[in-house]
């Protein structure tokens, strides 16, 4: 325990630094050190306390880190704002205080409204990630155009108000192996962004099949979220006591239509033709159906079983899929379009897979799908049930319906996912050589990599990389040489257990990459592995020292960043309410000198706006600019919820460059990824503790308790 404590405080110090380099999103290195627990996660929490207690320590850590980062960001922003406001004229300053109140209040409302479900918990909606808009530039002009300034201020105030209203949820995402990850999702985030986040957290292979799914326990339904959807909205529809879940899984059907379009568009052809379909012809099919002026929906027609309203019987009808909806042929009528009866149009409903409907509804087969308004959570006459003869035709129909409903976005989603996957596989390929040098045994990686490579030959040259990336942030340039191995010393310290050394190594191994992984492929340890519930992995095995020695000095910190160690209680007090804001803290202490741990924690509160000092040191301007250009959130204040990829990038180069020298100091950016991963486990819902501060201390306490339990 002592060891662990020491380690934590160490980490705390790191974290402090990290937080100071605000604005960067960090990629949480996969492994969280710290005492590990048995995976006894229970899913429905009743209140916040309980939920916190239930959390794994590392979850808590992650949460903390997120929160801290978040708070800091807010404070900083507020401070900046206040300063701004004060300089010019009084009117708006009022607003900012109010704003704070707002923040505090909003979580409550959130809680009461919705949530409560295990997965979604309202969390601190405190932070308004958005940078106040145009302040700096407008300042000079102020004198000249007063009106302008005023307008700006109003704008600003309004923005803050709006910001305060942004809903955030803490979402628990279940993995295949039964473990879970917790993250904070804000309502503007798309599923794509959340997936990217999950990639960071799990270091999975990032292939296009990874999906987030929602299950509805009561109705026995499951649906894969589309990448362009916002995640929060559907989750808000869950009822308070719902046992719905969010799953992180590989769903092969998700983009199957783009991998084998012939199976959908030429489904009538015989199997052999479909199997031998040439890549070139596939391309043509996609071109024809997805790249024209209009998206073409597969020409589907067939007999399906329809559950009659309110009855238990299923009736057969001839159904037809059209871009405008599903139709059926009514009795005694012809199949001609004008005689078709509209069964459902897709504007207001989603399509779900039904599970075990044979039992539940006496369906002829278990291959059922359902249409319902996303808000409907219980049995209702407004739910429409269809049943197919086999799994394949169900897949055909559901895919066809998705094409009809989402049209071009579906293809866009796929292209984005593919880009991501390609990048990550390249990344792994690049890393692999070096990693394999050191740690020969890395079985996991090897196993995975073929899959990842997926046809992409490993291309070692950096150039192709950036090209491929497109607007994605280029990978950290220096990577080649630099692959910084984990700092042996640190690792040693950290690793309480060696048990899982080799694998772990890999994980840590290319720490810089891990930071990047948002867009880059993280080294692929088995996804579930790094999960919270699997203790062994987190423990960084120190063993490889020999191997490492040869490697460049470790930029270890990157790895740790995400794991904010449970801060000493003392620190906590100072944390939450950052009164200090008014005094804009000067840039954080010089990196070199490691601030004493406890103190550092406190620092956080005070030295909010830490222009990351490190930055200048590493000249990593290119990535940054890229970042901005790529449509990431506005630069001024740290953009909290930016698309993770962009953010990550910035960080990456940094840590890479940093390698030489003081390992510890290099703060891999603060752990606030776009969605700070809060763990709210769902329970919080009931609790609805107000402001971030409360929540924070709650968290701290919980962590403390956990630790003492050990």
């Amino acid at each position: 325990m002592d060891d662990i404590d020491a380690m934590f405080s160490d980490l705390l110090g790191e974290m402090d630094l990290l937080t100071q380099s605000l604005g960067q999103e960090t990629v949480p290195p996969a492994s969280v050190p710290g005492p590990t627990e048995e995976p006894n996660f229970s899913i429905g929490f009743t209140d916040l306390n309980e939920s916190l207690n239930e959390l794994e320590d590392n979850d808590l850590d992650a949460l903390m880190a997120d929160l801290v980062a978040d708070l800091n960001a807010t404070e900083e922003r507020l401070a900046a704002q206040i300063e701004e406001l004060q300089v010019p004229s009084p009117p708006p300053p009022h607003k900012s205080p109010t704003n704070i109140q707002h923040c505090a209040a909003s979580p409550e409302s959130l809680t009461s409204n919705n949530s409560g479900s295990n997965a979604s918990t309202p969390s601190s909606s405190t932070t308004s990630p958005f940078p106040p808009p145009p302040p700096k530039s407008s300042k000079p002009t102020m004198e000249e155009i007063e009106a302008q300034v005023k307008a700006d201020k109003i704008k600003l105030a309004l923005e803050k108000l709006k910001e305060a209203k942004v809903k955030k949820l803490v979402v628990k995402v279940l993995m295949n192996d039964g473990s879970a990850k917790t993250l904070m999702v804000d309502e503007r985030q798309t599923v794509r962004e959340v997936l990217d986040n999950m990639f960071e957290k799990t270091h999975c292979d990032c292939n296009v099949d990874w999906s987030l799914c929602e299950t509805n326990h009561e109705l026995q339904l499951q649906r894969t979220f589309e990448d362009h959807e916002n995640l929060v909205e559907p989750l808000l529809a869950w009822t308070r006591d719902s046992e719905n879940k969010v799953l992180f899984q590989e769903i092969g059907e998700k983009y199957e239509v783009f991998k084998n379009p012939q199976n959908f568009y030429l489904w009538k052809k015989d199997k052999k033709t479909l199997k031998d379909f040439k890549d070139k012809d596939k391309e043509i099919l996609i071109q024809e159906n997805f790249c024209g002026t209009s998206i073409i929906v597969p020409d589907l027609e067939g007999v399906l079983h329809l559950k009659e309203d309110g009855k238990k019987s299923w009736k057969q009808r001839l159904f037809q899929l059209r871009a405008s909806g599903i139709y059926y042929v009514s009795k005694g009528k012809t199949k001609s379009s004008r005689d078709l009866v509209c069964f459902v149009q897709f504007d207001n409903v989603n399509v779900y897979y039904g599970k075990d409907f044979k039992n539940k509804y006496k369906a002829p087969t278990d291959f059922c799908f359902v249409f319902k308004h996303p808000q409907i959570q219980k049995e209702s006459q407004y739910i429409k049930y269809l049943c197919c003869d086999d799994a394949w035709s169900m897949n055909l129909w559901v895919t066809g319906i998705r094409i009809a409903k989402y049209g071009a976005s579906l293809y866009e989603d796929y292209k984005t996912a593919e880009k991501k996957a390609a990048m990550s596989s390249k990344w792994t390929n690049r890393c692999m050589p070096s990693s394999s040098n050191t740690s020969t045994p890395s079985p996991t990686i090897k196993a995975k990599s073929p899959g990842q490579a997926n046809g992409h030959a490993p291309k070692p040259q950096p150039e192709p990389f950036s090209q491929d990336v497109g607007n994605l942030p280029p990978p950290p340039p220096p990577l080649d040489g630099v692959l910084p191995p984990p700092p042996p010393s640190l690792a040693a310290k950290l690793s309480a257990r060696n048990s899982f050394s080799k694998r772990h190594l890999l994980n840590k191994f290319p720490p810089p990459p891990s930071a990047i992984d948002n867009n880059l492929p993280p080294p692929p340890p088995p996804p579930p592995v790094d999960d919270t519930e699997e203790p062994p992995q987190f423990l960084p095995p120190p063993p490889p020292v020999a191997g490492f020695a040869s490697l460049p000095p470790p930029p270890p910190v990157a790895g740790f960043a995400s794991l904010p160690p449970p801060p000493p209680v003392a620190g906590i007090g100072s944390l939450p309410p950052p009164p200090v804001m008014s005094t804009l803290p000067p840039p954080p202490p010089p990196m070199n000198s490691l601030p004493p741990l406890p103190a550092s924690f406190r620092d956080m509160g005070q030295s909010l706006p830490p222009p990351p000092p490190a930055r200048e040191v590493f000249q990593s301007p290119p990535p940054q600019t890229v970042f901005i250009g790529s449509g990431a959130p506005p630069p001024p204040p740290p953009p909290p919820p930016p698309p993770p990829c962009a953010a990550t990038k910035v960080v990456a180069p940094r840590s890479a460059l940093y390698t030489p020298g003081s390992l510890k100091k290099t703060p891999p950016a603060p752990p606030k990824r776009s969605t700070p991963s809060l763990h709210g486990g769902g329970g919080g819902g009931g609790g609805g503790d107000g402001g971030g501060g409360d929540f924070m201390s709650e968290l701290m306490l919980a962590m403390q308790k956990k630790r003492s339990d050990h």
Partner: protein
Amino acid sequence: MAAWDLSIILEDLGPDTPPITLSVSSDLHVGGVIIKLVEKTQMKRDWSDYALWWEQKQQWLLRTAWTLEKYGIHADARLLFIPQHKPLKLGLPSGMTLKVWASFSSPVFQAVMTICRILNIRHPEELSLLRPLEEKKKKKDKDKVGEIYDLTGVRPAKGTQPVSLYNDVPAHFADSAEMEAIYKMLSVTQTQPAPEIITKQYRPSSVVDKAHINGRWLDSSRCLRQQGVQENDLLWLRFKYYSFCDIEPKYDAVRLTQLYEQARWAILLEDIDCTEEEMMLFGALQYHIGKVSQSEPERMSTNAAMENLESALQSLEVKMEGGSSSASDMLDTMMAPELSDYLKIFRPKKLTLKGYKQYWFKFQDTSISYFKSKEESVGEPIQQINLKGGEVAPDVNVASQKFLIRLLIPSPEGMNEVYLRCENEQQYAHWMAGCLLASKGKSLADSSFQSEIQSIRSFLAVQKTNSGSSSHTLASDESMNTHSLVSPRYHKKYKPKQLTPRILEAYQNISQLSMTDAMMRFLQTWQALPDFGISYVVVRFKGSRKDEVLGIASNRLIRIDLGVGDVVKTWRYNNMKQWNVNWDIRQVAIEFEGNVNVAFSCVTADCKIVHEFIGGYIFMSTRSREKSGTLNEELFHKLTGGHEAL
């Protein structure tokens, strides 16, 4: 070499004028003949467009260096000396008729290119000329001779570079105000036709009827005169290949408009089948496009510079909005219009409330709250209804003063039905607009609130005129008959007042589209129909004893059973190894991969037409690859020309 007499008719001199006789020898080249002829006429004029036409062989003698011998011309040849360009009446998809100066001597493909150049339509390869229906022509001659817009004065600069626009109008139209007016007519959709006109038009009632239409395409590799087209004949200019490359509203004003018109008529005349729901959407889009095009013409005429500036400003605005929050947006939120009033509510599914009860309603964000009375509206509402994600349907009858908003509000348990009853049009328009926006998650502060109110009102106006006692003879802008928005089948099925709410329902989702977007939506919906883009021809497959239908689409051939109408088989072009036409027995033979051979003779169309369709689509598919804007005329000719190409 021996000299012999060659007589040449000069049509310009009048039909009775005797032919001019020249003494020639067989080694004289055609150019020489023409010089002799011109000298002999002793007329001073510009003969440059004139050429010799060999009547018996139906052939132009355009190669002036060829000798008479090489052409095989003897004394018995009946030669005419006539101009190559003549006026032609051109029916456009929009129903407008133009008179244009067209080449009667170059292949139709080139003639169409020139015509499209005049009209400023890009991608002329997608269009061709169609002979109009005879029966209709007779009728037309009798009852109405629509106005013919004379464009014979227009000769665009030759060349292949894009037509330069001047104030959004091609330079060759900018000469006079009249010309500009004509151009605007080309690029703006026509007002909705009266329902009677739709009913009167010829409607193909079966696949065979549709197949017959395709027998009337002109051969694109031969010239007009060779195909019996005379001066001042009427031909239709239509999009023939349903593969529309790169539609860019900015440059394609005429093309887009005409394409929309063609699609619209295809829907109205049931040339392509659709479901009732789809028809309502098409109706709503037409209504919307019609309405917007009447209010937008001003915009079309603003000069280009202004427009550029405007669009630049707009895009700037968009940028500043930065996605989620624009300042103006937020200001709006602060100054959101308030909406509160006494309305009556009814919940059909709940037994507790009998009939309509009156409450004080208040709109907030995307929710409606209601209170016992205005006075109590400060406190807690009796209930709050969040409309976001819900469905909103109108139930309105102006004549009986019924203004009902039907709401379907989602909740975890299912959908709740709620009816709101408004007192009058004014109230209805506001609340309906609010509900519509709220269901899409927008608040009243949204900039579209006012326009939404406007469109609801104008739609009510339609109903008013329709349901009024006066017959719907007036086709003025505001009083449009909903029957003119749907195919005649629905005229019988629904009365206008039944149709209005249904179209209005579909209209909700599209009422905020700009004219171009609405047209694009129309085209997309059209293209998404299962039967879109299939040209039918009745054929007889080799070895089969009955006629069948061959459907030709942009990517495949479809064999359709004539009796049942079922698809028997599809072949995709990318599996096609080769296709041949045996011109002697008029049979098309196609070989697909995997040793699949198909052969058929054509019944309702010449096999040249089928050949051209297939070759044409293959040509269309090559376009995207070679990006250059230039049209590969030679390749087109190779693919579609048949034996002429050899």
